[in-house]
């Protein structure tokens, strides 16, 4: 994505509210046509950053370029951005068509052209016949679509979405996720999404910036973020991750690889590329996703003899999946293992002994 022309360039962006340091040096480039997400827990500064791009907040320091233009002192109504608000902010005293057409008030279009543009925008979000509907007679999902149509009709360079799906129920949220991806492909506009829902960010984004306490902790595509989180904190925030203590051995194999002794699992060799600063010899920690551990049944054996044994401490049955907490012999705490339930494969009992296979390629070294 980074090879695309940047439409948003943030350089050393800082924001203070009195003593409170909300944004601590944000630097990022967001490409033309990219679906970009700001992901983080509440209070991490993601919404502040979004509102700064929209122009509702002034930067304390740093620079924001939109399409190459410095936005210093440019008010929201003069920026090439439009926003979908968390509350949708549908004007309650106007009907759907008036809401969607609101931004065209100042355009030089004829009444007929405006009418057609509103019709097209409503069609695009699947509300073709709802133009005359009163705003308060809309469901949550419909409000969301009206808010989208109202912003997209302005043909912004960047569409900003502030937790747009958080007010919807689970089913509707999944529908709207797919809908947003489709819309974004269709219009080719850069979308910047703020969310605290890691799954939502993984599903929808080309790239994700994970934010903690006003800083970007990691900026990567969803797969890298999931497979190679750069810190324990990011790993904990995105999906489920097991952590095990490990020791980086001084007798590494060399050639860009490092040897580890992992508690309960034994010796593993990893790429040092995981640690750009180089892996320090001594105490460290590795991460392993639940799906990277496999329960071995009778007659099965692990590739390269990478097996471990332990006791089942918890069984959580989900229908398609079963989650086990297994205390591996020699490990300080249980690891979570997720297994797909296959026909003819017995679900392990609480307290049973289990053999596990593990794959060092799925291991993440935190150094």
């Amino acid at each position: 994505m980074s090879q695309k022309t940047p439409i948003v360039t943030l350089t050393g962006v800082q924001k203070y509210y009195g003593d409170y340091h909300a944004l601590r040096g944000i630097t990022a480039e967001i490409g033309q046509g990219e679906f970009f997400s700001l992901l983080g827990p509440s209070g991490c500064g993601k919404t502040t950053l979004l509102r700064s791009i929209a122009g509702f907040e002034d930067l304390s320091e740093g620079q924001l370029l939109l399409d190459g233009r410095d936005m210093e002192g440019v008010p929201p109504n003069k920026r090439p951005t439009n926003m979908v608000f968390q509350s949708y902010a549908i004007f309650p005293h106007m009907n759907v068509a008036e809401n969607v057409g609101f931004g065209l008030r100042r355009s030089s279009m004829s009444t007929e052209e405006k009418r057609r543009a509103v019709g097209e925008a409503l069609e695009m979000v699947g509300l073709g016949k709802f133009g005359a509907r009163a705003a308060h007679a809309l469901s949550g999902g419909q409000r969301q679509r009206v808010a989208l149509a109202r912003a997209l009709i302005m043909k912004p360079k960047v569409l900003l979405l502030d937790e747009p799906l958080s007010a919807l129920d689970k089913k509707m949220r999944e529908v709207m996720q797919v809908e947003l991806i489709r819309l974004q492909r269709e219009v080719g506009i850069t979308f910047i999404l703020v969310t605290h829902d890691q799954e939502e960010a993984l599903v929808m984004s080309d790239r994700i910036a994970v934010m903690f306490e006003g800083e970007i902790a990691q900026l990567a595509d969803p797969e890298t973020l999931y497979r190679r989180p750069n810190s324990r904190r990011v790993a904990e925030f995105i999906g489920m991750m097991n952590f095990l203590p490990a020791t980086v051995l001084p007798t590494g194999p060399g050639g860009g690889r490092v040897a580890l002794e992992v508690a309960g699992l034994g010796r593993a060799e990893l790429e040092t590329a995981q640690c750009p600063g180089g892996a320090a010899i001594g105490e460290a920690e590795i991460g392993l996703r639940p799906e990277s551990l496999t329960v071995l049944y009778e007659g099965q054996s692990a590739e390269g003899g990478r097996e471990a044994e332990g006791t089942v401490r918890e069984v959580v049955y989900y229908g398609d999946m079963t989650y086990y907490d297994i205390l591996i012999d020699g490990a300080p705490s249980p690891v979570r293992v997720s297994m797909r339930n296959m026909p003819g494969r017995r679900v392990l009992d609480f307290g049973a002994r289990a053999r596990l296979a593990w794959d060092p390629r799925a291991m993440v070294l935190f150094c």
Partner: protein
Amino acid sequence: MRLNLLAIFAAVYLLVLYAPIVLLPLFAFNDGTVIAFPLRGFTTQWFAALLDTPALHQATFNSLVIAVSTAIFATILGLFAARAATRYGFPAKAGIIGFIMLPLVLPEVIVAISLLIVLMQLGLNSGTWSIIAGHTLICTPFAIAILQGSFANMDRSLEEAAVDLGETAWSTFRLITLPLVSPGIIASLLICFTISLDEFIIAFFLSGNEPTLPVYLWGQLRFPARLPVVMALGTILVILSVLLLVVAETFRRRGLKRAGLKDTGGFL
């Protein structure tokens, strides 16, 4: 038993509250100058007498001028204060708002006396304008209370959305804010008008030789023969006050409905 006691309590409560007011129309239509039972018969002559009392007309005119001006000034001031209180944070906000709301609980006689002293010290003549000032002082807290509700009920991102869609601060106020708080503005105008119209103490202290309606009424009480006329006037005022309050409350509810909100117990 408990229910019955409660019912009796409610009945007595309402009786004590409203019986004196019911006496007003009763004696206003009574054919006799003495305010006492038994009633003498039905007449409308006291209402007719209202029509040919020029001093009363002048007092009514004074009161209307004062009430309309007060309603407008108090509502405009209330609009500024309510918007500031709900939209912005500033140092000592709670203290400042509390200070503005103070006249709500301040004895009117204190307001009246202090205003009179200020006027005398400045060597100014009291009159209609000074009553307007006094009434604006006591009505502004009511305007703020009503309008604060209107602003608080309004989602702040509505204004931001309008700005985001290309409107300026002023056009956003005109196109979004004003239509959404207008029911509150109307309610505030009506309530301030009613309060000012009824107000006696400040008007009495500051009216000089231009009495307002309540001050004129009070003056009439010295002449027993004029009592039934006062009753007739009182009847009209009660009806008008109730009507105004009903209209004000209707507008407030309509505003809530327009904003798509549930009624959570109104100002009234």
